[in-house]
């Protein structure tokens, strides 16, 4: 098991306006670690989309970003309603977001597809009524 450092963030589901802040903090930490700017950008997008999802759909949750010499792992964990049909949720343009959320410019159905696009691997574990864990990895080597 190689050495690693983990950052933990609480994503507050009650305050929509605070969504996206963990993504900003992650960027700062990754710069301090000397991570390549392009990798930082990819992690920041994946993280941002994940955060927004947790706020819109799950009432918040926790995010863990773990950096090792090999990769950066983002774990987003919530106790929300779960994803009923993961394949469908992965389709671009598919969204279960409410009209309210859409009127703010979110809920375009690009969250999960973007998270997949900007990371090297993504794994979704979800159970309806229990919650969702999404693990994404971005390779450093």
């Amino acid at each position: 098991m190689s050495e690693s450092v983990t950052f933990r963030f609480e994503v507050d589901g009650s305050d929509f306006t605070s969504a996206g802040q963990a993504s900003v903090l992650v960027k700062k930490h990754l710069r301090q670690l000397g991570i390549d700017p392009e990798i930082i950008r990819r992690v920041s997008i994946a993280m941002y989309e994940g955060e927004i999802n947790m706020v819109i759909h799950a009432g918040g949750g926790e995010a863990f970003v773990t950096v090792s010499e090999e990769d950066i792992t983002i774990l987003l964990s919530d106790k929300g309603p779960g994803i009923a049909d993961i394949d469908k949720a992965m389709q671009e343009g598919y969204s279960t977001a409410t009209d309210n959320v859409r009127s703010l410019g979110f809920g375009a159905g690009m969250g999960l597809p973007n998270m997949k696009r900007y990371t090297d691997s993504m794994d979704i574990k979800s159970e309806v009524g229990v919650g969702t864990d999404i693990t994404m990895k971005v390779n450093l080597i």
Partner: protein
Amino acid sequence: MNTYKHSVKLDSAKCRGCTTCLHHCPTEAIRIHNGKAVINEDRCIDCGECIRLCPNKAKRSTGGSLDEMKNYKWKIALPAPTLYGQFENLGDVEYVLDGLLKLGFDDVFEVSAAAELVSAYTRIYLKDPKVKKPAISSACPTVLRLIALRFPSLIENVIHMLPPMEVAARLARDKAKSEHPELNDSDIGVFFISPCPAKVSYVNNGFAGYKSLVDVVVPISDIYFQLINVMDTAIGEQQLSSSGMIGIGWAVTGGESTAIFNENYLAADGIDNVIRVLDQIENGSMPQLEFIELNACTSGCVGGVNTIQNPFIAKARLQSLRRYLPVSLNFLTEEEKQKVPENYLFDELPQYTPVSEFHPSLLQSMRMMAEAQRQSRELPGIDCGACGAPNCRAFAEDAVRRGEVAVCPIKDKLSGNKE
């Protein structure tokens, strides 16, 4: 290692170590050592927030002075359009320009005139499909430095256009040399009359391999009283002003954007808002935009720390000054419209400087980061600044960088109310 020459300086005698600047510096560049503020020059972006907020007036910007006119045979003033917003009931820009001549300048060249050419060429520049969108304006030097230090993935989005001040400096020099062929380059002194300290740094350091053609940057606040004393309604017959609404509009946020003639733009000001916008562009949560104008100061250049007047008043005055002006007084010929000329462009973009990196080795950085996290958990987390760092986390990081352990100076006093 640090070779960047800053213009924001501290007057130690006045500094009381009060932590105001410490808490407001957007790049956490300030620490208090032995009761005095110290600026980390690698991190400073010359935004001027510390000058603006210091209750003891201990922060100032270095700049040139009019005394330097004696070093040149031919002195040209380049007034920033912000200057025009500093005077009550001005009525006409001519009085300001005439006043500059009365101060001893041989010629004036309005930065707003160059701004109209920059706007015209930016419209052409943005048509090139190779330009990365959203294209970010390069006019505010603080924003450029911020992007280079903190938003490396957006460096490619910066427009390669020289700022109006530089274009004005070149055109003013060319004009002097064509009207007075006996002048050498070293005979000509170009004085930019500046609303902000960041322009001083820009001129002193050059930019991405580009050497500025401005010789001296004089803060508006330094020249103001001298200028107002010589300004008079009895002015020469010569028409000095040569810019319209577009050029003068550059002094205020939105002016540069509206001159692009494309409504798909965003204009933001205030350093914290600028950082928020850049964060959003970086994480992909920004609508598709053509053009982004960002100004570090509230309301744009009229909010610069080297101005005299409240930015909102200056803005209101500029609105009335602009009202009956032609839209623009500087135009491109059909031939000029074909291509943006090389002398309007800089070819190198700023380089990413990872100033906050713990260590060149990732493994070592990770260990230091973990240690900083561990130490920071031991600190009270109230970010009071008594230790001299802007927050507990930064204090722990500083300690780890020095190979020390962060010892909070007030923890014992706090334990009573915390537990």
